[in-house]
């Protein structure tokens, strides 16, 4: 037995009410109740600074990037490329040229599948993913494996929602051409031991893609410490705009990768006989990009960094611990996903009541949760479920919102008797 250490945090360390004041959407009623937004794993609300950054771009700097000689285009280009640098710094990459802007996490995965894996995937080869992947880290590989006659292999997970590492080691073979693994599970909240998994893969010379959609808002990510080959994420899960994401890829990989889409901006020169492609990252950014999205993405990361990810993570861990205890105390509630290391995602079911009915009743109390399969049907099937209720927390959630959730769940019981 160790002596419990007092872990009283000073109340001034993280002022959640001040944070809430930064998010205009939180200040509204839903069905006559104060909005309790607990669907953050689907998308987060945006702080005023992100909204302002996007509108200021349209008000002042709106023009295309990388091509105009005029002032507005120069301002837009500088802001766009600075955004790339902000993302680079935030995730600990060495070089801004390792950051490719995408539409989403999904596009990042598709890009890696098409430009890096496809040319080196042969019949009989294997792609290795886990049982807890989002559909976006399953379907692109399925399509590719079908096309190439390769096999999609799946790392099993245990009843708590943790990767079975011994099985993972066994599944890593000479035929494995890539490992795709989610950093934080959107359906279970599990934080996977990606660093260890990457080490094991690299020992066999296998590159690894980390799906960081859910880890970006909750964890301090350092791609160089992780030593991942690819890291993909989306802005909207981390307080930024929708329609913009980023792919980090080691420069040595980017230099080898074939173009993803053809078009403007990804070329140096074009004749009808042939095209010279631009250097990475531009080689992978055909067409006019989501300029305001990229700039808004950077504003969101700066906002988060100003509070400090460790501080935010501590606040969210506290919320998760409190919510887990409180929700489990509601009769008939069963948790889905009880890994030792979890991010602020609480997936659960209530005996005899379908998640959709729970979602509708909570909504009538102003509480927004996700009810469904969370775009992760295989993981639902693993637990013999078709759906769960998911409450997912962000930096602006409070303990009193957990009380509201619990009161809402008691109402669900009342309605269903």
């Amino acid at each position, binding site marked *: 037995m160790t002596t419990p250490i007092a872990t009283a945090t000073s109340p001034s360390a993280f002022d959640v009410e001040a944070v809430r004041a930064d998010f205009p959407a939180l200040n509204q009623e839903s069905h006559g109740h104060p909005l309790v937004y607990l669907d953050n794993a689907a998308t987060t609300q945006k702080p005023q600074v992100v909204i302002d950054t996007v509108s200021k771009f349209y008000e002042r700097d709106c023009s295309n990037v990388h091509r105009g000689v005029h002032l507005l285009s120069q301002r837009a280009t500088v802001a766009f490329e600075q955004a790339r640098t902000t993302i680079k710094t935030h995730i600990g990459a060495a070089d801004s040229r390792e950051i490719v802007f995408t539409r989403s996490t999904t596009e990042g995965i598709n890009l890696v599948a098409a430009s890096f894996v496809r040319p080196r995937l042969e019949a009989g080869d294997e792609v290795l993913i886990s049982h807890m992947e989002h559909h976006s880290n399953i379907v692109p590989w399925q399509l590719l494996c079908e096309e190439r006659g390769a096999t999609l292999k799946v790392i099993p997970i245990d009843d708590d929602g943790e990767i079975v590492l011994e099985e993972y080691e066994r599944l890593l073979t000479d035929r494995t051409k890539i490992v795709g693994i989610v950093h934080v599970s959107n359906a279970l909240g599990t934080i996977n031991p990606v660093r260890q998994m990457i080490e094991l893969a690299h020992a066999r010379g296998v590159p690894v893609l980390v799906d960081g959609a859910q880890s970006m808002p909750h964890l301090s990510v350092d791609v160089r410490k992780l030593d991942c080959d690819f890291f993909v994420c989306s802005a909207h899960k981390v307080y930024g705009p929708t329609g913009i994401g980023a792919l980090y890829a080691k420069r040595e990989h980017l230099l080898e990768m074939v173009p993803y889409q053809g078009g403007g901006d990804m070329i140096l020169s074009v004749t009808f006989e042939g095209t010279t492609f631009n250097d990475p990252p531009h080689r992978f950014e055909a067409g006019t990009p989501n300029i305001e999205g990229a700039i808004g993405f950077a504003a969101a990361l700066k906002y988060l960094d100003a509070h400090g990810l460790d501080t935010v993570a501590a606040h969210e861990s506290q919320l998760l611990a409190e919510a887990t205890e409180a929700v489990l105390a509601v009769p008939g509630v069963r948790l889905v996903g009880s890994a030792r290391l979890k991010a602020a995602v609480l997936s659960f079911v209530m005996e*005899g*009541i*379908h*998640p*959709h*009915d729970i979602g*509708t*009743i909570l909504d*009538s109390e102003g509480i927004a949760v996700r*009810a*469904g*399969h969370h775009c992760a*049907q295989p993981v*639902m099937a693993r637990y013999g479920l*078709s*759906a769960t209720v998911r409450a997912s927390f962000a930096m602006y959630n409070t303990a009193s919102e957990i009380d509201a959730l619990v009161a809402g769940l008691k*109402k669900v019981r*009342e*309605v*269903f*008797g």
Partner: protein
Amino acid sequence: MSDMRELYQEVILDHNKKPRNCYVMDCPTRTADGHNPLCGDIVKVYLRIEDGIIEEISFQGHGCAICTASTSMMTELVKGKSVTEAREIFEGFHEMLTGVAEEQGIELGKLQVFEGVREYPVRVKCATLAWHTLNAAMDGDESVTTE
């Protein structure tokens, strides 16, 4: 809360708890699978149609309370009715839920308890999945989705 009572009426909760005609039929003349990809609800409808009359109907599946109760009540209502009558009831039911017609001539009887669903557009598909599936089975289609 009163809104929720409106949506989850006693009849609905009762059918959800104890769904009627919920079994695998031995020798159906028609079957169809219904799937709502949005929420993962799945319904399989079994029919024994003789001379244009639904002599027997049963179902299997899993879904929310609205979906389960709607399916259960549908089986009770259309049993013994002709295929044409069943289609007419579905039409009236659909109109009640989507608000196309304020007044319609079709007698919906017990199905009126689903009127509250109208206020919840995302849940309308939960109430109509079984009916779409029944329609598919009567048409001879093997599967249907609500998307």
